[in-house]
């Protein structure tokens, strides 16, 4: 028994010794931890404190520089410029509202803007900077810089801003840039979340947006808790966005726009007292002139009117390069960065002449008489007529119980195809359209680029409309009626075309039926490599071309009054006057006759059209001009086209050498 007790005591003692040893080890281990914590929290605290702050901006993105846009001669259409922006980081500002009110002492910020900023601040993480004001002037920069200590969280950042040095001249081609909207944000492109980042919203800026953006770099920034940058180092360089070289010639573009806007009106300087009075009274006039014009239009009646609106396209018939692409009215893309004001936006979107729409590709007009080449060619191809087939025009034609009028009240007498085109006789085309049939007309028109989007490199292109029996049945759920073929024969009714399609049509006629495609880029060499040709007989096409030549050369041609002023160079083409309202029998038979175009309200006036190409013997450029509600093709659109074509040919010393002839082997 005694031994057991001793053993138990021994066991206890041994336990105590060992437990003390373990306890000692534990104290040692805890001591190690305390020493380690002391090291982190006291000795290295400063380092970790700044790391903790820099955590907020551990890696920041450097936005890449957006690619520029140049015209065909290297003139800048869009580029970037430095801009000073005021930014605020809500986290570093104790009271963001108070800071913003203090800021109003140095720069004008209205209540709405403050509200917007406060809203943004509520929604996003508090360490993300918010742009308060973009593009502030140097004086303001220095005033704010001095007062930054009293404006917690405020900083001045140098950012890039998009500028369009040509203002409104080519806005429908270049497009504009703007802030990234919620729906455009994409997790895979973190740069889209940067506060000052801009992306293309329309035109070339949208079409080539991803290429033009480039790739963002990354930057490691260490900032102290007051927002002062202690150190920053670039981790990855940015890759600059691609530059875009357009086929556009900005000088010709300018000329074309001005010429179109002038129309046949007299231009009065805005400094004249009369003009000033008009501007004071009419908000729309004043707004439209503010951007880029110092003249106001006065029409032949002496009224002050808005500049003509519409579209001009000039295209190289061999390459499809678009040299001029005008859509009027225009607007200033510079207003969209940093952000367009509400009043400007209201003006733009409610403007009766739709400045926001690029009419060259999205404006769909009945082609009117400019469609007659297609009808004539379809008739020749189908064999229902030859170039010698004649028809008598008494000024109208009665088919069934319907009466269809020619524009020439007293008729053209006996005409063949070429004269019918040259004098734009409607009755002739009513007859041959009916004989040819709508499906044959549609087939030929589509070959020449009508009825489909041309595939030009711009977003938002419309397809126009070439109707046929199937279309009517599928879409309208009705059977095609012969009367509709008759109307289609003069390019009215259902037929619609965009200005770019009309230019393409005349280019394809001019180049002998090669299926070029329009492009706005300068290097379309590959495009011309393997072009298909339209399957029409060369002879028939030449008959049409001769007819278009007669428009200018014939003594009764509708284009005889606006021949080119260049010696030995002539333009072939076709005028068009498109009725936009139905003329009632009562009006037609009244004593005064049809109400004159000038006496109608603007919206009811005829569209004036012209399509053509020059020089007529060695075609180089095709042109289409549409003056919206501009009156007749021969008096309004034709002279405009003549002047623009003249300028184009004069501007181009190589005008008699076809660019990039296809028989030349490609290297």
């Amino acid at each position, binding site marked *: 028994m005694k031994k057991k007790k001793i053993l*138990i005591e021994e066991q206890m003692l041994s336990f*105590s010794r060992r437990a003390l040893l373990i306890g000692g080890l534990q104290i040692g281990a805890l001591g190690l931890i305390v020493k380690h914590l002391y090291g*982190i929290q006291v000795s290295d605290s400063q380092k970790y404190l700044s790391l903790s*702050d820099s955590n907020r901006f551990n890696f920041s993105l450097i936005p890449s520089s957006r690619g520029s846009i140049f015209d065909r001669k290297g003139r800048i259409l869009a580029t970037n410029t430095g801009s000073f922006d005021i930014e605020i980081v809500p986290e570093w500002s104790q009271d963001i509202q108070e800071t913003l009110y203090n800021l109003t002492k140095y720069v004008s910020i209205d209540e709405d803007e403050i509200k917007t900023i406060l809203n943004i601040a509520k929604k996003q993480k508090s360490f993300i900077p918010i742009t308060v004001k973009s593009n502030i002037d140097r004086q303001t920069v220095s005033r704010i810089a001095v007062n930054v200590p009293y404006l917690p969280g405020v900083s001045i950042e140098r950012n890039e801003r998009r500028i369009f040095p040509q203002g409104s001249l080519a806005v429908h081609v270049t497009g504009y840039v703007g802030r990234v909207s919620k729906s455009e944000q994409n997790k895979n492109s973190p740069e889209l979340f940067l506060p000052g980042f801009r992306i293309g919203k329309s035109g070339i800026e949208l079409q080539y947006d991803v290429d033009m953006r480039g790739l963002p770099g990354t930057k490691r920034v260490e900032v102290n808790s007051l927002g002062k940058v202690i150190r920053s180092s670039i981790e990855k360089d940015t890759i600059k966005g691609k530059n875009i070289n357009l086929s556009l010639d900005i000088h010709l573009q300018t000329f074309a726009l001005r010429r179109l806007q002038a129309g046949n009106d007299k231009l009065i300087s805005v400094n004249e007292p009369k003009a000033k009075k008009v501007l004071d009274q009419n908000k729309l006039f004043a707004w439209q002139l503010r951007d880029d014009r110092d003249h106001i239009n006065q029409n032949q009646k002496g009224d002050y009117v808005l500049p003509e609106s519409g579209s001009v396209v000039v295209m190289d018939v061999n390459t499809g390069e678009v040299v001029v692409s005008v859509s009027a009215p225009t607007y200033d893309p510079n207003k969209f960065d940093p952000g367009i004001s509400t009043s400007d936006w209201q003006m733009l979107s409610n403007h009766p002449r739709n400045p926001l729409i690029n009419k060259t590709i999205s404006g769909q007009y009945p082609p009117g008489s400019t469609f007659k080449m297609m009808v004539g060619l379809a008739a020749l191809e189908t064999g229902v007529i030859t170039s010698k087939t004649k028809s008598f025009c008494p000024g109208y034609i009665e088919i069934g119980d319907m009466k269809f009028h020619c524009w020439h009240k007293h008729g053209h007498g006996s005409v063949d195809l070429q004269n019918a085109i040259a004098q734009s006789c409607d009755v002739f085309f009513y007859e041959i359209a009916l004989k040819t049939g709508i499906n044959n007309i549609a087939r030929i028109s589509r070959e020449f680029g009508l009825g489909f989007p041309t595939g030009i490199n711009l977003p938002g292109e419309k397809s126009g409309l070439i109707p046929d029996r199937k279309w009517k049945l599928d879409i309208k759920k009705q059977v095609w009626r012969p009367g509709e073929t008759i109307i289609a024969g003069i390019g009215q009714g259902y037929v619609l075309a965009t200005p770019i399609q009309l230019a393409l049509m005349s280019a394809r006629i001019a180049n002998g039926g090669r299926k070029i495609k329009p492009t706005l880029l300068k290097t379309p060499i590959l495009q011309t490599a393997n072009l298909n040709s339209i399957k029409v007989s060369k002879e028939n096409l030449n008959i049409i071309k001769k007819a278009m030549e007669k428009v200018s050369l014939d003594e009764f041609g509708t284009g005889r009054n606006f021949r080119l002023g260049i010696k030995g160079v002539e333009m072939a083409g076709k005028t068009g006057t498109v009725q936009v309202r139905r003329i009632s029998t009562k009006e037609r038979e009244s004593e005064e006759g049809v109400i004159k175009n000038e006496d109608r309200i603007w919206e009811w006036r005829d569209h004036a059209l012209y399509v053509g190409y020059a020089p007529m013997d060695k075609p180089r450029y095709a042109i289409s001009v549409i003056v919206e509600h501009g009156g007749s093709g021969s008096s309004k659109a034709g002279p405009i086209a003549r002047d623009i074509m003249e300028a184009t040919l004069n501007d181009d010393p190589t005008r008699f050498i076809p660019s990039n002839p296809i028989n030349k082997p490609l290297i």
Partner: protein
Amino acid sequence: MDSLPIFRKILKFDWLLIFMIFLLVCIGCLSLYSAAGGDWNPWANRHFQRSIIGFVIALVIAITDIKIIYKYAWLPFIISIILLLTLYFTSSQGVNRWLDLGALKIQPSEIAKISIILALARYFHDINIRDYGKVLYSVLALLIAMPIIILTVIQPDLGTAIMQILIVAVIIFLAGLRIWLLFISLGAFIACMPLIWFNLHDYQKQRILTHLDPSLDSLGAGYHINQSKIALGSGGIFGKGFLHGSQSHLDFLPEKQTDFIFTMIGEEFGLAGTLFVLMIFALIMLYCTIISFLQSSQFSRLLCSGIVFMLFSYVFVNVGMVSGLLPVVGAPLPLISYGGSSMLTIFISFGIILSASVHRFDKIEIKNY
């Protein structure tokens, strides 16, 4: 010997220990309130409710006679093995440490820690006093613990397994392991290191490697350690203030409500906060060590000191991990981290300590004499 009436037992409770435990629970609730961005939900409320249940369990155990605990000491061990086996056979691929028992989810490897301590304490108590310290029995003890350790390793939950091994080693040592054998086993362990290395999962290797140099991959596996150190260090001596830890509130800290809660305390209350928490843990351990010295049977002695070491290992591994001293292994901070299983283990353990303290003069008969 008659046992004491219940109210006498309650009077004999170590109220200071209970107070310190309660203090830690309160610190836990406040930290979870801050971790939720100043909200009692979703963590702080549940944490408090769980701790109330925990206290009830602990007090029930505390008034239970130590002899009864001795009598059923093997039961939790067997239950643990069953739970671990269930987990092994029901779990799908990958890491799975949680057993879903319908109403509650438990982590069997946590419960297993206390069951190992109970089993080994009873095992060593039952050995004939003449065989005290014999090598055979030390090795046998290791073999007894093996099933649980192996089942934990294959989960795989290396962190918990290592803690289990350490607890087993400490108990065997306290039960009178021959000193020379200790050195041999240490040598053997070091020799086995390469073997263990090659059997580790890739993410486990990665954890150890990044532990050695966290800056190697600052956005990868070492990210947690770096961010945790930044949070601790930026807290400085007195911290950024309650609810103002930018690291925690800007979500740079992973799992701030569980394993990294100590970091958040360090960021918001600085060194003062972290030392205060560590001091309370040290006082609790000291208190429990004293209780273990006062025991009159080998069973309760080993039980108490085993529990103290378990508590120590929780604290050491957790704080060591978040401060970058040890590799990242999932280890909660007792009573403060949000989580039911470890809290249950801890409260059962404190219940046992309290019971041992109340019944410290009770002798448990020694068999096989």
